[in-house]
């Protein structure tokens, strides 16, 4: 029963991702992407990673996607943009990326080959994650915090100029 649920979630994730990346309308694409992320979150949960699943929903599907929404609303691309997108998505543009992707997929499947093994079925609790995170991975946490800080500064800098310019004109 749960296994079926897992494969259904996987199917939803794949289809909605495909749909998201082939939409002409950015807002539509975003909704599809959120669906895909939620499906992946379900898969996380089923594989015994409830903490990761929660983070996926809260941060990925929530915070990060909301950022996208802000930007799309801010740019307000409109119908002309949508028409142009449709034009860019014409069939002839699919050939090279499609061939590349297919080749790479074949190679990846070959690499995976006859990989044996199943997931353990044991859930890893948020507590266990927390203990390891602030134990052996403390340095990684610090580095991640530095990264976030620098991106904060960068994003502020880039965005502020945009806003100021808007105000000037």
């Amino acid at each position, binding site marked *: 029963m749960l*296994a079926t649920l897992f*494969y259904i979630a*996987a199917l939803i*994730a*794949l289809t909605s991702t495909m749909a998201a*990346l*082939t939409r002409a309308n*950015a807002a539509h*694409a975003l909704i599809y*992407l959120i669906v*895909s992320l939620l499906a992946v979150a379900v898969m*996380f949960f*089923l*594989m*015994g*990673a409830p*903490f*990761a699943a929660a*983070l*996926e929903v809260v*941060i*990925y599907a929530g915070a*990060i996607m909301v*950022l*996208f929404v802000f*930007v*799309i609303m801010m*740019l307000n*691309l409109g119908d002309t*943009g949508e028409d142009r997108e449709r034009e*860019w998505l014409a069939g002839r*543009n699919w050939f*090279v*990326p*499609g061939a*590349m*992707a297919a080749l790479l*997929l074949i190679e990846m499947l070959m690499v*995976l080959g006859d*990989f044996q*093994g*199943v*997931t*353990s*079925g*044991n*859930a*890893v609790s948020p507590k266990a*994650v927390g203990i*390891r*995170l602030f134990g052996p*991975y403390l340095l990684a946490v610090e580095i*991640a915090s530095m*990264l976030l800080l620098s*991106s904060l500064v*960068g*994003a502020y800098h*880039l*965005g502020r100029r945009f806003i100021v*310019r808007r105000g000037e004109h």
Partner: protein
Amino acid sequence: MDGLMVPMEHVLVIAGLLFICGLFGLMLRRNIIFMLMSLEVMLNSAALAFIAAGAHWGQADGQIIFMLILTVAAAEVAVGLGLVLQIQRRFKTLDMDQAHRLRG
């Protein structure tokens, strides 16, 4: 218990498919916003592979790496969307085929 026994092969194939989807989108789309979305998909597929590996060994490390990927994704999106705004302001377009001047 509390988890599901899924063949690793299947999960990794799903992660690979998602990754290929993201890559395909990256190569196909000309709009910078869609390219960023494709990147998110690719990062997410990597995260899926890590979670699967963590589940395989029953260890927390998979989830920790997931959290680091999350951090990278968040940072990337913050800066990337800032850049999107700048590109829109300067080039009046989001078409990356037109905005290919290397110098500011």
